[in-house]
């Protein structure tokens, strides 16, 4: 289910931990699998668990516990906006509202063309650069004023 490249990345993660501690690599392995497939289906979770030789339910626990794993399909771009208090004080909520209006969706929803999914985020540890939006988990965009959001949306086609 995973490309050679993904498997190689997982193998590399495995070298970080003692040989009998494969389980430690589950977070990275699920992340890598998610990057390739966009989301973690049950089959994919099971596949990753088997690859690391751990009970699938342990992988499921991890996939459902950490908020950045997509256990349901998401749009091409998953936009997560931090609305926690420090961000809210510097435009986080405004940015989120703007996106809701602009995309015509609420938190937790995906646009009908399957392009954007909007999520509410908790503190991302970059409150000084608010408003912040994370695109597909790995690309953090800070100082997201209305203009910056517009520009970003243009890029994300």
């Amino acid at each position, binding site marked *: 289910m995973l490309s050679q490249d993904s498997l190689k990345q997982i193998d590399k993660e495995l070298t970080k931990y003692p040989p009998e501690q494969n389980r430690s690599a589950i977070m990275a392995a699920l992340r890598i699998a998610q990057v390739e497939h966009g989301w973690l289906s*049950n089959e994919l979770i*099971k596949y990753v668990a088997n690859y690391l030789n751990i*009970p699938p*339910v*342990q992988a*499921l*626990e991890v996939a*459902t*516990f950490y908020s950045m794993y997509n256990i349901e399909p998401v749009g091409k771009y998953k936009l997560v906006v931090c609305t926690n208090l420090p961000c809210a004080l510097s435009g986080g909520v405004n940015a989120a509202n703007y996106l809701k209006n602009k995309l015509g969706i609420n938190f937790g929803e995906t646009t009908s063309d399957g392009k954007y999914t909007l999520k509410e985020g908790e503190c991302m540890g970059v409150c000084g650069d608010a408003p912040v939006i994370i695109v597909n988990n790995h690309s953090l965009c800070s100082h997201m004023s209305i203009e910056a959001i517009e520009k970003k949306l243009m890029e994300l086609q």
Partner: protein
Amino acid sequence: MIELELDGKIINAASGSTILEVAIKEGKYIPHFCYHKKLSIAANCRMCLVEVEKSPKPLPACATPVTQGMKVHTCSKIAVEAQKGVMEFLLINHPLDCPICDQGGECQLQDIAVGYGSSASRYTEEKRAVTNKDLGPLVTTEMTRCIHCSRCVRFTDEIAGYQELGMGYRNNHVEIMPFIGKTVDSELSGNIIDICPVGALTSKPFRNQYRSWELSRRKSVSAHDGLGSNLAVQVDKYHRVVRVLPLENEELNECWISDRDRFSYEGLYHEDRITSPMIKQDNKWVNVDWETAIAYAAKSINGVKTDHGADAIGVLAGANSTTEELYLLQKLMRKLGVYSIDYRLNQADFTLDGKQHGASYLGGKQTDLLKSKSILVIGSILREEQPLLAAKIRKAVKSGAQLNLINVINEDVLCHVTNQIVCDPREFAYIVAQLVKATGTHSDIDLSNVSLSESATSLVNSIKDGGYIVLGEIAKMQPNYAELLMLVDVLAKNIGGKFGVLSGKANEIGADLAGFVPHKTEFNHKAKNFGMNARQMLENGKKAYVLLNTELECDAYNSNLALNALTLANTVIVMSPYVNEQMRSYADVILPITPFTETAGSFINFEGTWQKFNGVTKPLGDSKPAWKVLRVLANTLSVDGFEQNSIEDVRKELIALNDIAGYLNNSMDISKMVIKKPDLSNLIRIGLQSMYNVDSITRRAKSLQETKQAKIPTLMISSGLADSLKINALSNIQAKQLGFGRKFDIAISDTLPNTVVMLAVNNDTCGFGGRFEVIELNTYLGNYK
């Protein structure tokens, strides 16, 4: 030792123990949910909060170690307030409909909540609802009731050996769940029902039938494996067993039982149960009264004896019969001059009869086995044969013991295995011979043709300093068992270790010491007259058979021989709780005896513990305990020595068993042997049995038959063998033994060696030959269906 004060009382406690452990020892109750003495400490429910002086906040008793001078208050204002607070939190999302909950009346949450006299709820928001999960045929869920104590999760991980349940999500959305689409398939799964403190996990077969307070609770002993788990059997007002729970016995089953012990009871009331004596007249079965039936049986026995001599009678019994039954039956038969008596129905090799120095047993107590640094198990599918012992071995492995396996299939015992040799069973003895050669010599054993393999060398390294060797059912069924056992004896001496055998059935040692073998009478006395053993009795065709507690066509080593012999006999007298189609055709009289739940009796488990029990309920219909039937039969036959009026009277004759240790002995005379590499050119059958087909009760237990374990494929070969025979999963295959063949679907598995054919023992293979004898496979073109 540490001195502390618990609710004003000065107490000495072992250092390292927790407040809760100390309190329990003192008989003091501290409410708790997540704590379970056999599981790791989670300390997450927070119900057990107590006040500890000098601590700024209440502490969880389950996880707080006691310290010198500690002052603990378990029911002070602070403690009770903390506990009440937790209780309120637990209840805000818990349904308050105890009257319709299956756990009602035996719910820890309910008990504790009542204790706190909880007032009207301050929680006015909507309660959380959680979807139920399909955990399989044995366990029902009602997940909205779950209080997230995580006991079930820890059980599957820590005791059952494989985490099948998890706690998914986080915050108040946490949910206990199996992997999506998976059920809980552990052979110990039922224990999660017991440890669930609320009604979230309950018994599927038992569900919605009874309230616990309507049931009476009686002690019993399991009849389904050699461990002898103690049971608390629950009986309804109609005298039917409706639920089986573990009865705690720290030495044996701790607080667990296997699913087989728990759910077999469903087989007790299967439609095959017979409740009235029956005799065959003009090829038709008619129900008769006991007097008629017994007179008929007595007449048949006398008839055969007069016409053909007592030698023409063979007596066979299942080793899940009680010691008392077996003792009386052999006594009666020997008094009649019948000496062909045996319980070893599935054994093939009897050459050691007369050479062993006592009854074979585990070779020590379970603790001796579990304490040893290295264990070698030969020929046992541990999790199926001895589910709880397997769990204990896993625990031993976790704390450092090495486990080595030699077996015919690659079993996943769910723990680290140091060496695992999967081989053709014909190689067992040869491999052990290699281990013998690597560790020493023996004057009577010629090992010159034995050469050491790499796997054997590696295994020797694990066991060489006093390993403990155990032989299981598969080893005991081998046609060269004697050779194997002698080699194991020598090996154990070479390495300064111990060895033992596992009883697959509940009462093998009881049967042995009751004299239910052809070469010994009770308590190891050498028989004056040797009769035939189980195999000879079938090979040599007796005129009459007396069967106790067995469906011989399923239980015998060689079903084909058994069916032939029984069919050709003049008379077959069956004492059995059940009847089946085959039995109807070969039997002449069937006496409905009771299963272990309806009679007093005793079993001796694999370590030699003699456990007595009473019937937990009245005999069903007109059936009777076998010991009573035998007594009346003996009286009818005018045999003396059968005046026993109670089970106690029978046990008086067995009083020697109180000093059982003196009769247990695994040593033997070693005969001269030349060990050669086995010839594996023929395919051999591996006649395995599903773990839920091991006795008449179990194979009729409905829910167990729906589990994954019950559904083992009938015919299975390795992919290597399939390739060389050009067979695939779609091929039409006929398996054939002794000219008896049948077609089967084929399963392919890499857990098997390449020279064997797994042909299971089940209804479809009734009539096939020996369980570990040569077998042929033929392919057919076209579709036979």
